[in-house]
């Protein structure tokens, strides 16, 4: 069987696959930024002493964590254009779905990170005269993010894998690109193996990076 492994089909389609990979990476990066940004805001709301705010943020998190990701993708792909009355574009609808979905998970990670910063550090910032916002920005969040680096990046790796779910709306990411070639040239074995290997290697590099960063930034 391996004798019949056709490397040529892979090499020939590297540019096409690379285009797919670019979309995968772009989607991962943007969804990651959106998720962390949204997650930070949500986490601050959830930790707020103003009850309606923390309730609203809590409900958001519980809602999205109870939804299958694929359903959220569908929902934004098919229903948001109906709601706003015009097409949003495949990429943007998927990006919004991922960012909103990831924000719910990042919220919980960041909330734990903020809680991991010692109370005394908050006191020390307050005692200097920092306002709540300054204390968060200069004292609490920098330490919280350092403590969270391993979990944040692990979640990023999961996100990177999950972007392949855009398959369901036909957006041409790395997996879909490989799938197209596999079916058109009838090279299922070669293409799926290659795709799997690429995902494996990238995720392996990612988790190694996590460990190095963890050692570097551990407080």
């Amino acid at each position, binding site marked *: 069987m391996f004798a019949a492994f056709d490397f040529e089909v892979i090499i020939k389609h590297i540019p096409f696959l690379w285009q797919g990979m670019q979309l995968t990476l772009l989607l991962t990066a943007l969804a990651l930024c959106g998720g962390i940004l949204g997650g930070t805001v949500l986490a601050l709301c959830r930790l707020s002493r103003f009850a309606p705010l923390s309730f609203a943020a809590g409900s958001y998190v519980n809602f999205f964590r109870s939804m299958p990701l694929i359903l959220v993708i569908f929902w934004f792909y098919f229903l948001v254009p109906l709601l706003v009355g015009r097409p949003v574009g495949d990429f943007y609808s998927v990006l919004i779905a991922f960012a909103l979905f990831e924000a719910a998970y990042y919220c919980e990670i960041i909330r734990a990170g903020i809680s991991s910063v010692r109370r005394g*550090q908050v*006191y*020390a910032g307050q*005692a*200097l*005269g*920092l306002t709540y916002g300054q204390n968060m920005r200069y004292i609490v969040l920098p330490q919280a993010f350092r403590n969270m680096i391993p979990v944040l990046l692990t979640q990023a790796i999961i996100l990177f894998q999950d972007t392949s779910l855009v398959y369901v709306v036909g957006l041409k990411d790395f997996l879909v690109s490989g799938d197209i070639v596999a079916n058109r040239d009838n090279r299922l074995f070669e293409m799926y193996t290659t795709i799997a290997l690429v995902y494996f290697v990238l995720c392996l590099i990612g988790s190694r990076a996590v460990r190095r960063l963890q050692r570097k930034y551990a407080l």
Partner: protein
Amino acid sequence: MIEIRNVSKWYGDFQVLKNCTTRVDKGEVVVICGPSGSGKSTLIKCVNGLEPFQEGVVTVNGTSVGDRGTNLPKLRSHIGMVFQNFELFPHISVTDNIKLGQVKVLGRSADEAQERAMRLLERVGLVDQADKYPAQLSGGQQQRVAIARALAMDPIAMLFDEPTSALDPEMINEVLDVMVELAQEGMTMMVVTHEMGFARKVADRVVFMDEGRIEEDAPKEDFFGSPRGERAQLFLSKILHH
């Protein structure tokens, strides 16, 4: 300067402060002592509003700390505070620890803050540690940086919350020396500590707390000299014997 009148505080049903009243005048050094759990640390944190209290009034320089309308960050920026566990910011350098409040709260330029930081580090004898991170310093050094950080804000009063309790014995004096010097320069100080040597040397008054109550509040000479309440005697005999 600092006035605490009939302050009570509860954690749920548990009353940590019971009708506490005392004061610290300008230039005065007041030492607060008492067994652990007596409410000393809670009381000192009420002075700059780090701990809220339910009853009573605390005023600093005429401003009421408990008032809803009080700008607490602004009030706190005038009061230096030093903590038991130093609480230097671990993610920034020693110099940046001293610069942060100056730049972000007082609005000083980076150069001005830098210059002030270096002068204060010189004063606490740590210029050579300026670029290090807090974790690279010993406990005594960290606490001296923490004092420098508080002084950088040009405070009108300093609060010390058990500044030497987390230190190894050989490092206690380097911190106390800085504090004694401050006291002798006329800084208004409120100090929660068990260091009775420090109290004898520079305190004007000693306050003894037990179970959330201020049991004694006397000039140093009276506190260490004349007969006192049973609890204070027992406490003193325990900590002075070693």
